[in-house]
């Protein structure tokens, strides 16, 4: 951050026209042949907004591959055929209104979570890929946290609050001294884990059923921490990827989405292109501040309570169209990035959604969902109303398909009732 000049010395171009570095060159411990035989790895990018999308502006009126775009979807239309808009999809057990934001990626409520169906889709993917890349996953949100990502044990995954922080984390190397200190610390922490595990095992025989579950939770954390330390250690010696990112661009506040959002998506792109991570979440938060886009004059939350007033809906539409514009630009960049097989877009599932649909009603039904890329057969505007039971398709069914596409062997993610393979593959 501080040394913009240095980081501008570039190998990779953010514009994405060409890549000077061979793909995944930074991957230690993998020979060229191994990489080839593994096939082309998939990526998952989950974008969300905290306040839904106004259904009247978002959902197109016709279903099928050819549909007249809704006002908000207009910017995505340059990628027509490469994405699917879903109608009538929801998390059937979620009725938590604003709380639906927290359930977007898992479809569950954290109640006495203790490891039951609380993990979010991104974390399942992250666990699957692990430290194949430097970061199993990375998370960012603008305008305040969305908090849709949960670890298997029910702890909220942290999000970076600004592109600059994310840049620092993903692409700025620690000093040599700091690295050395960290290496010693990793060894020390690994030895601590050995010790405390043995101590905890000593207790195992003594405790009853309910306590055993808690103790098991601790022992699991110890085991996973050991694996995590090994993963981090593996990457210690390798420098972070050098990318072309202009650190001198500054937003004049947290609501300056016009500046912040392109920076955010540039970083998501660079993260994928440099194979720094394969799982990303990016959110536009829920708040009541004025988003600094031309034509927006009122707090976001106030606008979302539009009560069908046209002046409010038209301002809301500016914000929501902006989200789609940003997503569209991101998709274009992915398409321009050539990989050995085709382009990065075909390997990347770009998901957009919200845990609310119409915020004015606080409805958690008919969530606004778009899926692009990932090598799927896209279906234009798809009606996900299930014929056999007249219910909306659980969003976890879509996640199941996405996880399978990512390479995770799963029949049903959380309480999914099936998958959408018959539609998308």
């Amino acid at each position, binding site marked *: 951050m501080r040394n913009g000049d240095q980081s501008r010395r570039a190998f990779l171009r953010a514009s994405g026209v060409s890549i000077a570095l061979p793909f995944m060159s930074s991957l230690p411990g993998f020979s060229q042949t191994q990489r080839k035989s593994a096939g082309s790895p998939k990526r998952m990018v989950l974008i969300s907004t905290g306040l839904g999308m106004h259904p009247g502006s978002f959902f197109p009126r016709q279903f099928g591959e050819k549909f007249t775009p809704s006002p908000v979807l207009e910017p995505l239309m340059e990628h027509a055929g490469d994405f699917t808009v879903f109608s009538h999809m929801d998390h059937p*057990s979620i*009725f938590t*209104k604003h709380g639906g934001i927290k359930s977007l990626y898992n479809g569950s409520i*954290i*109640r*006495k*979570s*203790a490891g039951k*169906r609380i993990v979010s889709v991104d974390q*399942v993917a992250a*666990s699957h890929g*692990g430290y194949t890349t430097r970061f*199993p996953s990375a998370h960012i949100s603008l305008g305040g946290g969305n908090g849709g990502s949960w670890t*298997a*044990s*029910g*702890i*909220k995954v*942290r999000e970076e609050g600004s592109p600059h*922080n994310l840049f*620092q984390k993903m692409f700025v190397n620690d000093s040599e001294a700091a690295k050395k200190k960290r290496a010693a*610390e990793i060894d*020390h922490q690994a030895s*601590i*884990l050995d*010790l*405390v595990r*043995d*101590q*905890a095992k000593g*207790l195992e025989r003594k*405790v*009853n059923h*309910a*306590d055993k*579950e808690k*103790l098991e*939770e601790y022992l*699991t*954390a110890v*085991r*996973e*921490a050991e*694996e*995590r330390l090994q993963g981090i250690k593996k990457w210690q010696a390798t420098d972070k990827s050098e990318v072309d990112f202009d650190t001198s661009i500054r937003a*004049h506040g947290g609501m300056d989405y016009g500046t912040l959002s392109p920076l955010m998506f540039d970083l998501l792109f660079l993260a994928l292109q440099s194979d720094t991570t394969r799982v990303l979440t990016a959110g536009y938060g829920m*708040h*009541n501040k*004025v988003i600094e886009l031309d034509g927006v004059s*009122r*707090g976001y*939350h*106030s606008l979302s*309570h539009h*009560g*069908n*007033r046209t002046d409010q809906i038209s301002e809301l539409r500016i914000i929501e169209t902006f989200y789609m514009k940003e997503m569209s630009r991101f998709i274009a960049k992915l398409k321009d990035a050539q990989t050995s097989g085709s382009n990065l877009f075909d390997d990347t599932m770009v998901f957009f959604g919200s845990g609310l649909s119409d915020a*004015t*009603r606080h*409805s958690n039904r008919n969530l606004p969902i778009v899926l692009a890329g990932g090598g799927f057969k896209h279906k234009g505007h798809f009606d996900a109303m299930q014929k056999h039971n007249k219910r909306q398709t659980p969003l976890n069914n879509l996640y199941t398909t996405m996880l399978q596409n990512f390479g995770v062997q799963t029949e049903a993610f959380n309480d999914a009732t099936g998958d959408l393979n018959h539609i998308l593959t």
Partner: protein
Amino acid sequence: MRFPLILFLLASLPLVANEDYARIAPFLKDHCIKCHGPDKEKGGVRFDIAEDIDEALWTDIHAQIESGEMPPDDEPQPAKKDREAITKIIYALLTDEKVTLSTGLRRLNKREYRNTVRDLLGLHNGIFDPALYLYDDEVDHGFDTNAESLVISDELLMEYMKAAEISLDAALFIPSQEKPENKSRSFDLSKMKGGDRRFTDFSKDSAILRIGGSAIIYASESQRDVPISGKYRIKVTACGTDRDNYPIRFPPVSGPVKMNLGITSRSSDGIFQQRKHLASYDLKDEEPETFEVEVWISKGTFPYIAFQNGSSKPASLTRAAIRRRQIKAKEAKTGHDYIGPGIKVTDFTVEGPLDLEWPPTSYATTFWVNEIPDLESATVRRNILKQFIWRAFRRPVEDRILPPYLRYLENRQKETGDWQEAMLNTFTAVLSSHDFLYIYEGKGELNAFELVSRLSYFLWSSMPDIELFKLANSEDILKEEVYLAQIKRMLADPKAEAFKTSFATQWLSLDLLGSMRPDIKNRKYKAYYRMDLEAAFRKESQLFFNYIANENRSIREFLDSDYTFVNKALAEVYDLPFKGGNEHQLIKIPADSDRGGLLGHGSIHALTSNGVETLPVTRGHWVLDELLGSPPPPPPAEVPAIVPDLNGTTTVREQLEKHREDPSCMKCHVAMDPPGLALEAYDIIGRHRTRYPNGKKIDTSGKFLGVGFRNISELKSILVQHDEFFAKSFITKIAEYAKGRNLNPRDLEIVDQITQQAAKKDYRFQSILAEILRSDLMKHR
């Protein structure tokens, strides 16, 4: 990486054994599963899968079958004897410790971790926060002491290791075996850091800061660090400068330039930092004066200077002035030659450490010594380690515990060549073990050590002190008179603030104030920001709670009172006479005002609004849940939520009346809506209103618990008439906070007894607390 997905794919074991479920299943099948089964799953629950029924759900099933609430009236009813038989079976299961006892292993929550580490390591001074880096505890419902909710993960465990290391570093750091001398160090002003390069000017003789807002300046990294944590005297010589050297007038337009002095820290990654404001000073223009403040500076933290009333965006102001043609672009000096008003510092000195204890308090507390120990001696090392583990685990050290830590200590010495470093490493391991991170309680009656921990974490949110440990060791704490004397002592200790603050904060969700703010651009709610109502609301409710607790008032006053705590801003919002200023004061509420009790608090009104609209249903629900202890169940899934009509032809009352026509809504809404609609008399920031924005009149009348009322004052008298409901709910909540789990039917029987006892004493706060503390609720797991 093999992150064990297995963990959550393996369904957890059912609470009740299969043969027990089989005894209940026929009844469930006949009367319940039609709606609560695979087909409908009403209310999001189903009873056909034993594994899916947890303790809370069993408790609910029991209560609803027993009371006749379920099956609903329009369904076939079970025979009376079947109903009785089945409730008996479920009750027997629910009161069987073998079946329902929830976990006795409770992880320290973030607050408890922070306080425990501070107490254990003697780290009370300065701004150091041991829990700074830890994940927040995610508690869906209830309190942050709930053992089930307090989960752990690999990431959190790694943060614990890191937090322990940083804390021990802070506690055990000494620059040498000798006590450091008191020295005076002046910072090189030309090498100052911070601010914004365009609006700072650093030279040998002075450092000038011309930007306000969050900008701060401080000494460079090589100079600012103190040799050791301790008390220091900060001296700043400064004046206001360049007040009239700019073509337009910049803030402060009138009055003196104000300088803030504070302490901050910067972690190595530059992301986390804390700030603590120390003092503000009025500066004279171009006439330097010296200001001094004595303060604890922890190693790694350092003093900063800020321009309190300076412009936070001088460049934007300049541009705006050009646009308005107040100045010409040519004369507008932006960038480095900007010469708007600023703070000119001509000397910045830190002197100390002053009156340093030797060894330092944290060192002495951590090692539990009076002088620097000789770590070369194996006996000394063994004693120090044993002593530390004993205090950290909050119980005597069993034989099997110590040897592995001693071996670890020796290994670390071989690794680092330094006994102190090895000791620090070993202590880090101690603080990462489950023995430290979890409070452990065995079955049945608590033993002496478990009991003092229970007391201490309940009342202090921290580990027991030495006096409690001694009484546990001698088992004297199990004697009634000793126990009562200790409770008295603990409640009188300043540490008992932890209970009042965290219980009130969580009970009333005061920490959530501000998560749904009004639109900052909406003129109607300007007061919210201008007068900092958020903080004022929070403080009112907290002071109100503390007053009832400290003055041993009746908890009935939560329902209605003739007093509250306001400052100038709140008095304005509440329209109450008040002569004071920004500080909250106790005031008597005029007889014709309805501000008494929690229902008059702006905090409650704001929390039951969403920053845009008031939420009458949420408000009604809040009254039923918090003031009556009988929360209605969540709405059935099939019913769409009400869409507020902002175009303004119907009122919310009319909408709700329509909504109630649906029989599935009727049952709960008939109870919830009247109090909720009465509370429409308060807007989203707690101001009185008689009309909606569209001009329609607000009707506050209704019927509650079978009694008609015209307004909020009358609603409150109905609540007061039924204060035993509130008392029971309040006692239940305190007990859940203390026990770290939801109460089961066995516990609730004790709550009933306590409620009856407390009624005889007018539901006075302290007698309620005393009854809880003396009961089996406290003394049993």
